[in-house]
């Protein structure tokens, strides 16, 4: 990624790795001065993450191969060497015991006996007197240079016309006699050569493998980066439909690509939301403004008397008041969603609040020939914004009354369950189609059947925002008991202070009617406002 310059800012001199092919296609470009060119090129190589990654890969690969081979070497050749040493020492100890038991003749006898019994023909002995004459052994002469008794010497020897390699050790005996014990290690030398050859070949192959592996890593990495870079570049220049291609293998690169694509999807949906909301705003504000304008213009052109003129103006003012109301509602929702209102939170008692609301709206219901039932409930304490909760409940009651059939019943109840207060406004009204339910709390959404009733389709958007602000959720669904009408259910978290269990578990409630895009269109408005 570091090799990618910010989009829209052409790199100096040689384009970085990820861009090479793109840049070469865009035709000749002016060459920068030589010094700059050289410096950038070197800088690019150092800065190329893909190359660094490949190098790290190769180095690691070879290091581990070397460690592995060293272990093999140590485990075979080293072991053999240590065994020979141990055998020589054991031999010498046995011989010196013979000397103490039987003196010189016994020792000479033992040496001869041993040589005779040596099947592998790899044992070497030599015992000389102080004058240097051989007393017993299978070596012709005492090898020159073998003096110290605490070292193992490695010698070339020739024995019975065969040349070979031997490990020997010298021991001094009382009276100036000297003893040499050794082993012929020709076999070991052959093994050593063989192993060295093998390991060298292996090393070579490992290097080739390491380098080609590094190359593969680098190209994988570059492919990934190039995919992401070209996609994001396309998006930055306005083509929101682009997505990072997947290799289909489900590997980590694919997962990164998927995450990026997911993010892009969400951004695209947010953009759609913004577009949709601003279209709605344009429509919903333009209509009353147009109406007001037409009324005023009509009055100024055609009104025949003051009374007529005044009536037209008054109606235009009403239209403008409608515009203001919509505008205010939108701002309010955006304000709530921004969480700005959390500063107004305080402890409150919900049941009493609902009693008062029921009293206020009961009269309205009665006037329309409906009954508003309020089931008495236990006190419910929670921490929230009183006017907002009142507004939300007012919106729900208003809907329930507005969409009720004559002689209908509306009920308002509340209960607490699992840290959430549940406010249910139930009506027996015209209800909504399932597809409409899902969209009910979108901004400006009004069902077909609601066109003849007054309203602007912002009531439930506000309820939804209030629910979210209070760590709850808003659900509107067909009545639980299956009768005609709707249950509008507002969940509020019942935490009792600013710091008490900030986010309650709302995840377990699958909302019947709050699809993703709804949340998003609200996010959208928020970010656009």
């Amino acid at each position, binding site marked *: 990624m570091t090799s990618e310059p910010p989009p829209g800012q052409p790199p100096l001199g040689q384009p970085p790795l990820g861009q090479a092919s793109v840049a070469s296609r865009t035709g000749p470009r002016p060459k920068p001065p030589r010094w700059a060119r050289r410096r950038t090129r070197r800088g690019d190589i150092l800065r190329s993450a893909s190359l660094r990654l490949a190098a790290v890969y190769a180095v690691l690969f070879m290091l581990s191969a070397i460690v592995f081979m060293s272990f093999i070497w140590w485990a075979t050749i080293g072991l053999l060497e240590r065994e020979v040493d141990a055998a020589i020492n054991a031999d010498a100890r046995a011989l010196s015991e013979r000397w103490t038991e039987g003196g010189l003749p016994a020792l000479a006898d033992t040496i001869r006996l041993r040589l005779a019994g040596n099947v592998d023909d790899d044992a070497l002995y030599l015992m000389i007197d102080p004058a240097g004459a051989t007393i017993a052994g299978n070596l012709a002469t005492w090898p020159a240079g073998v003096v110290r008794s605490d070292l193992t010497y490695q010698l070339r020897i020739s024995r019975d016309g065969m040349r070979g390699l031997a490990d020997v050790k010298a021991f001094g005996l009382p009276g100036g006699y000297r003893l040499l014990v050794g082993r012929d290690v020709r076999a070991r030398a052959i093994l050593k050569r063989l192993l060295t050859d093998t390991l060298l070949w292996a090393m070579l192959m490992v290097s080739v493998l390491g380098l080609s592996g590094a190359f593969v890593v680098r190209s994988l990495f570059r492919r990934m980066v190039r995919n992401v870079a070209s996609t994001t570049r396309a998006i930055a220049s306005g083509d929101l439909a682009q997505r990072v291609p997947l290799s289909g293998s489900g590997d980590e690169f694919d997962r990164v690509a998927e995450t990026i694509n997911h993010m892009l999807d969400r951004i695209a949906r947010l953009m759609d939301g913004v577009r949709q909301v601003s279209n709605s705003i344009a429509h919903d504000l333009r209509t009353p403004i147009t109406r007001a304008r037409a009324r005023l213009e009509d009055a100024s052109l055609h009104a025949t008397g003051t009374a007529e003129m005044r009536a037209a103006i*008054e109606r235009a003012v009403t239209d*403008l*008041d409608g515009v*203001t*109301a919509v505008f*205010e509602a939108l*701002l*309010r929702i955006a*304000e709530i969603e921004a969480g*700005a*209102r959390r*500063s*107004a939170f305080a402890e409150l008692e919900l049941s009493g609040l609902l009693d*008062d609301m029921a*009293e*206020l*709206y009961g*009269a*309205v219901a009665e*006037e329309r020939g409906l009954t508003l039932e309020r089931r008495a409930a236990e006190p419910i304490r929670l921490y929230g914004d009183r*006017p*907002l909760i*009142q*507004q939300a409940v*007012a*919106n729900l009651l*208003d809907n329930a*009354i*507005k969409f009720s059939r004559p002689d209908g019943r509306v009920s308002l109840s509340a209960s607490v369950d699992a840290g959430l207060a549940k406010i249910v406004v139930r009506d027996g009204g015209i209800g909504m189609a399932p597809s409409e339910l899902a969209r009910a709390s979108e901004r400006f959404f009004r069902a077909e059947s609601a066109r003849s009733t007054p309203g602007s389709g912002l*009531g439930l958007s506000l309820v939804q925002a209030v629910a979210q602000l209070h760590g709850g959720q808003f659900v509107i669904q067909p009545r639980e008991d299956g009768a005609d009408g709707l249950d509008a259910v507002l969940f509020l978290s019942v935490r009792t202070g600013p710091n008490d269990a900030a986010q309650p578990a709302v995840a377990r409630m699958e909302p019947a009617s709050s699809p993703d895009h709804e949340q998003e269109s609200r996010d959208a408005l928020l970010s656009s406002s």
Partner: protein
Amino acid sequence: MRILLVEDDQTVRGFVAKGLKEAGHVVDQADNGKDGLFMAVSESFDTIILDRMLPGGIDGLHLLETIRAQKNRTPVLVLSALSQVDDRVAGLKAGGDDYLTKPFAFSELLARIEALGRRGKGETGPATRLLVGGLEMDLLSRQVKRDGQKIDLQPREFRLLEYLMRHAGQVVTRTMLLEGVWDYHFDPQTNVIDVHVSRLRQKIDKPFPTALIHTVRNAGYMLRDE
């Protein structure tokens, strides 16, 4: 009443001043914070209408805080294009007595100003009895009588009537009732107040030959003895 109007928008200022004059008030005008502050401290007014956002370095809240710091208790109504609740709270905290967001209906402004002006005069001690025409309210025994005839009221109806009687002869808007009687600060969406007032009328006016509660077109209600 003598009213100081501090508002920088000429159209709004002219319109408000004209309306207030028509309603029989004397209006002094300032179009920036500095002049407004000077007038507010050098002369005495019954109420001040103050726009929040003013040019000239001194904005509405600043002006308000300054005069309050000088122990000037003149009732102030703050006008603002900002409707967010925090702004409202800030306006009231700075010493405002009422808060109205733009755009507003003139009738709403006038009703609130007149209510404020009366409040400024101060009631002579806590009344225990309110009297308007033949209507009589005893605040201690919570009894209401009209022409000597006892009327039974629900607690909320009682509060509603009390509010209307305390503002007898004045226009009270629906929002004023919602705030003053129910202490609600939200938009009720429907004509809830009208319904409650009409219920009250059933008890107060219906059985009697003359009506005391009058509807003021495009504004609200007024309790008045004709």
